[in-house]
């Protein structure tokens, strides 16, 4: 397994990975490939899909990530916040 990514902080811009794993995932399809930013740190927890698929209980960082509804759905002036593990996102932009 490659080294875990560095921790992110509130304000960090992120992009949800487009690649969707087989099996159980905590990422809804409408967030795949979407950009958002971290708003809260949820600590580190086993990733449910990896526990089921590989009995991998490695604790990974989990973040509350905020998205603009207009960007996700094409309309709406509200935001949505989803809890995403670091395994399902990557930092976005220079210096992220």
């Amino acid at each position, binding site marked *: 397994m490659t080294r875990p990514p560095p921790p992110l902080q509130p304000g960090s811009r992120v992009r949800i990975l487009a690649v*969707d794993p*087989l099996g159980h995932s905590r990422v*809804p*399809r*409408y967030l*795949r490939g979407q950009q958002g930013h971290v708003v809260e740190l949820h600590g580190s927890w086993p990733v449910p899909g990896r526990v089921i698929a590989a009995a991998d209980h490695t604790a990974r960082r989990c973040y509350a990530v905020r998205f603009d509804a207009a960007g996700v759905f094409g309309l709406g002036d509200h935001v949505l916040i989803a809890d995403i593990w670091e395994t399902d996102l990557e930092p976005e932009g220079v210096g992220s």
Partner: protein
Amino acid sequence: MARSHDLGGVEGFGAIPGTDDDARFSSDWEARVFGLQRVLLACGLYSLDEFRDAVERLPPGHALTRSYYHRWMEAMISLLDERGVIDAGSLEAE
């Protein structure tokens, strides 16, 4: 890969109906399913994550045609069958 239960943001289902009914279950069998779930989890037959995965692995149409606790029951049966606790084939058809 997105699974058939993943319907968030999908158009065409209309507004989610509210209810003034405070009853948690619409029938007794649902309450029994709920209770059985708590027991099976407490006994360690499966984890909550495995249960969610089992619900998601139901045949694709079930997310659209089976009620919430009906899918719970189907998922429980499949998990117990997979673990050799029961033989799902010998269960009487609903």
